[in-house]
């Protein structure tokens, strides 16, 4: 009896093998659950013939590239709308928002973490309190504000522009908080040494703090990117023409056209999804670390 339960016994190894097999089985089933809509989208997008897409959609053939395959659906999308423009709009809006946010949020966080000035604790308290206000709660009054703001060249409204989709989202209380938490945990020695040598605040921040803070910059950049790439509510409200609209609004409008050509819709969806999936695969470790850091607070 005893021999069967030793680590080298056959029964023990068998039981361990079965457990391992069951674990992999469960994980594979879950993997299918998480992958099937994405595979479905990609496979359908390459089926040139719309009837093929519709015939296959209710069977496992939905996941099998069969029939006439090609890039016809992609060509159709480009023929119907200016996909390039939408992509440029999205990249520009999200790029400037994220980059601008990295600059001004990190600067404010550095002031809160390291510089001595009157009102610092109060300011920090206000920033933490602002994290609670969800954008959705201020969207409608914000619409009223941007509707009447002036801009260069005598414009009297911000509606239908790039900057209305960028400037309101650059400052972000949660980003400031993440930077702040990182900066207060940095060792002070180097900064103090530079201070004694007579370096100014800006030099210290730029030459000493920034190179040490790459992880938190990556974290904030990725979190802000995930948030704003998918932005839908705000661009829906503040843009009318296709000129400045981001991809998501273009996608929703394309989807709203009747009759629905599912092959084309899936091609459009794939073109939005695949670049982000590739970026995610390349920087996977960073993505996971950034998300994990949102849970480590309090």
């Amino acid at each position, binding site marked *: 009896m005893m021999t069967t339960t030793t680590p080298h016994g056959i029964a023990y190894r068998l039981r361990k093998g079965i457990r391992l097999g069951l674990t992999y089985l469960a994980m594979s089933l879950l993997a299918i659950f998480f*992958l099937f809509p994405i595979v479905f989208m990609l496979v359908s997008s390459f089926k040139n013939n719309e009837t093929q897409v519709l015939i296959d959609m209710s069977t496992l053939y939905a996941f099998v590239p069969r029939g006439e395959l090609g890039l016809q659906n992609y060509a159709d999308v480009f023929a119907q709308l200016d996909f390039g423009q939408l992509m440029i709009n999205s990249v520009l809006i999200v790029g400037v928002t994220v980059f601008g946010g990295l600059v001004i949020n990190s*600067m404010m966080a550095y002031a809160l973490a390291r510089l001595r000035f009157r009102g610092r604790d109060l300011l920090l308290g206000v920033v933490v309190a602002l994290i609670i206000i969800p954008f959705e709660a201020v969207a409608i009054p914000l619409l009223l504000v941007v509707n009447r703001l002036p801009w260069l060249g005598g414009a009297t409204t911000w509606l239908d522009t790039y900057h209305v989709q960028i400037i*309101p989202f650059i400052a972000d*209380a949660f980003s400031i908080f993440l930077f702040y938490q990182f900066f207060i945990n940095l060792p002070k020695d180097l900064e103090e040494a530079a201070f004694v040598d007579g370096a100014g605040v800006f030099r210290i921040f730029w030459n000493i703090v920034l190179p040490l803070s790459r992880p938190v910059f990556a974290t904030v950049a990725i979190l802000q990117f995930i948030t704003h790439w*998918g932005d839908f509510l705000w661009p829906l409200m503040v843009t009318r023409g296709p000129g400045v609209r981001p991809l998501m609004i273009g*996608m929703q409008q394309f989807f709203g056209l009747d009759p629905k050509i599912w092959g084309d819709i899936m091609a459009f969806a794939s073109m939005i999804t695949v670049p982000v999936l590739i970026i995610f695969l390349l920087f996977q470790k960073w993505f996971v670390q950034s998300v994990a850091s949102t*849970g480590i607070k309090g």
Partner: protein
Amino acid sequence: MAATVQRPSRLSTRRRSEAIMAWVFSAPAITLLIVFLLVPFLMAIGLSFTDQRLIPNPNLPTQFIGFRNFVRMMKDEAFLRGLLNNFYFVLVVVPVQTSLALLLATLVNKKLKGMNVFRTIYFSPVVTTMVVVAIIWTFLYNPGEGLINEFIHIISFGRLGPYNWLQDTKLVFPAIMLLSIWQGVGFQMVIYLAGLQEIPEPLYEAASVDGANRLQQFFYVTLPQLRNTTIFVVLATTILAFKLFTQVEVMTKGGPQNASMTTVVHVVHQGWGQLKVGYASAISIVFFLIVLGVSLLQRCFLREERMVE
């Protein structure tokens, strides 16, 4: 000696310049936060007591109408239905998504071959944008011959279905819940994974020496150690549930017959669609108070934990 005499004045000028630099560093963020967050927030409070419209009608000046917006809300079926749906969503999605996230995290935390691949797969819906997710699932939910109907047809041996998922008042909201879980659970999984990796290994060794089996170790070591993570995940999911908008707007616009209405969808339809800014602001305030309540609950729970330590 000369240096020590000089020092105070040199220090005080440096300190003054430090304070100036602090404000220079903070000014851009402060300005933007005030103009685009604080001011609109205060406006929402003020507007909620008025009948302000998005495009003011010169013949009908905006008036202060006291609590009339809030009274009207109590009789607004779409609003009540939306609020109820948000609670329904919390009640179903929070426990399901939290348990699934914990299950996934425990699975990918095992030191086995290929775990990175599985972790990547489970996380990939998170980087798939919600608009795209909503559209793919609309196709999957296709009435009649959609993939989901076919799947249910087969596993029930032909007894169930087909269902008209997005047009059926009883099914539309559960259908939206399913895709929301599909898209969001990877995020929570990663937060749990970070929590799991912080549990010190000796705790498991001690439990094992005491004769605890795997299940007992999970309930008496893992779960208590994940208390803070769980509080965070539960309350963050709750707040997300109250912000529910994109998938509903893309798939059903709140219909049929308000069956998939949510608070934020109603705010947008009233404020932007029908230009009733005053009324939409009032709903926004109620929405904010709920989110505030949930956030305070979280701080309260976490503080209690600290005091015990």
